[in-house]
């Protein structure tokens, strides 16, 4: 089953074409990676998919229905959650509260119920706190549950964002460079965690620079270069693709 499909997606900023006629599908239950050199348009594509930006052309459909032009909060409600390359944690709230905010779409209480604190509200709040703790354990950030967001180390911020994104119970999870700033052991733990999320039935689309991690976990890879899709396929094929090697892998090797 196709969870997410884009057709001819384009986005221009002035003269620069950031995303150029990109079409791809994400199938249910897979981990799909989106890679490409810096400035390839990966984050722009993420913004288009989640409603933070509007494409100039093309269509996005989620579970068969178009979500083109939807506001971000509607996209989340539909079942797509994301993290950011520059983490967007709520610094003045504790880590646990951050995850609770992620549950916004799953909880009901509005201004009236919240201020009256009816028994039903209290009960659902208690359940929500338990769920938040579970999610934090899942990503391995539970020991920071009571720290303010501002005090959390950089790598952990990404994990907390993952937990927060999971809190909305998404069918599709979009992760923007989750491994940046993690050491080897942490990256390994992240990989395990992502597999567990996948096993729970959540589809994942991931932007990542850590090729080791990408090759280890992804079922399929899309390669973007200067806004265009230059390759798509399973990791082994991508590794051998001449265009990819020229555009991207060479650069990585040069860097290393």
């Amino acid at each position, binding site marked *: 089953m196709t969870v997410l499909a884009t057709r001819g997606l384009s986005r221009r900023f002035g003269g620069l074409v950031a995303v150029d006629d990109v079409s791809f599908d994400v199938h249910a239950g897979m981990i799909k990676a989106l890679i490409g050199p810096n400035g390839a348009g990966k984050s722009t594509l993420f913004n288009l998919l989640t409603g933070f930006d509007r494409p100039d052309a093309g269509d996005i459909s989620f579970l068969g229905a178009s979500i083109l032009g939807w506001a971000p*909060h509607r996209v989340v409600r539909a079942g797509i959650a994301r*993290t950011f390359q520059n983490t*967007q*944690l709520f610094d003045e*709230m504790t880590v646990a509260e951050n995850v*609770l*905010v*992620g549950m916004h779409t799953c909880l009901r209480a509005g201004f009236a119920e*919240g*201020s009256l604190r009816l028994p039903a509200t209290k009960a659902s709040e208690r359940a929500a706190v338990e769920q938040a703790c579970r999610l934090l354990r899942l990503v391995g950030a539970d020991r920071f549950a009571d720290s303010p967001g501002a005090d959390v180390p950089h790598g952990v911020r990404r994990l907390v964002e993952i937990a927060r994104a999971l809190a909305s119970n998404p069918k599709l999870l979009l992760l923007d460079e989750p491994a940046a700033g993690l050491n080897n052991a942490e990256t390994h733990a992240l990989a395990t965690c992502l597999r567990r999320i996948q096993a729970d039935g959540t589809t994942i689309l991931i932007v990542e620079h850590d090729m080791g991690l990408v090759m280890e976990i992804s079922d399929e890879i899309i390669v973007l270069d200067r806004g265009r899709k230059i390759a798509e396929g399973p990791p082994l094929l991508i590794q051998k693709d001449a265009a990819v090697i020229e555009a991207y892998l060479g650069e990585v090797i040069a860097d290393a």
Partner: protein
Amino acid sequence: MSRRLVGTIAPVLAVMVVLALPLVTTDRYLFKVLTFVGLNLIVVAGLALLFGYAGQISLGHAAFFGIGAYTVGYLTADGAVPWLIATLAATVLAALVGFTLALPMLRLKGHYLGMATLGFSEIMTVLFVEARGITGGNDGLRGIPYPVLGPFKIATPGGVYLLVWITAIIVLVLAGNLVRTRPGRALRALHGAELGAQACGIDTGRLRVQVFALSAGLAGLAGALYASSVGYVSPTTFSLEFSVLLVAMIVLGGTGSIAGPVAACVGLTLLPYVDALIPGLPREAVSFLQDWEADIAGIVMILVLLFAPGGVAGLIRSMTRAGDSR
């Protein structure tokens, strides 16, 4: 004694002190001054949500206060409309105006939002003066009747004091509940990182409008109670200075807190009356305090923020943190 126990007992105790005051004294002056405190508390509760939690500045809440006051003044004159209905109407009207204003203001941030709310407030001041058929113009509305609840006429400063404070306490309890549940978290998220909030499925635009309308409604409610308790409404009360003072209460109290602004509100509202509230001050000291009131208020504001940039709430937070580590 456990902290939890203290946490329950202290507010209950404070509420009891507030409610028992009319049994201890009959001083009308004291009641009037404390009524002002209670009225400001109602506005501050809304502003703490809007500004302290959601980070949306408003330099125009005096205008909503005024809308509430004039609505009650106009409706209850000659007993045309029952007090309770008039008060509710005033609250709803202020909230509606806030709602309507918030829709186009959604796009504004920071100083620009400050200017827009300030501009709205100045426009309302012109209307308060010019719409003489409703507001009485510069002469104001006089003889606004005391609150009447069914068969009870609340016609003493003590009674009005109780009414206002009970309202304030209810509002504060509700606000305190709110910030600990889903909508309150959403407000704090909005302030913390707007992109993050949107990514959590929060409709930030709608939330902004909601909290603005809510805080405008609370300001309207306070204004309505002001009109009934003071009995006289005139345009000079709803000034920019009042709006600025309210914002100052939030910052001095500390953003992201209800308790802090409450303490700052009590302090700042009582400051001009301090000469009358301290027993046995010599006449010279009283006139000195009156003369230098603005200087003292300004210096207090500067000093508090110089030594406690997080306001009262920040101060208490750091005190408890120090206590915890010991």
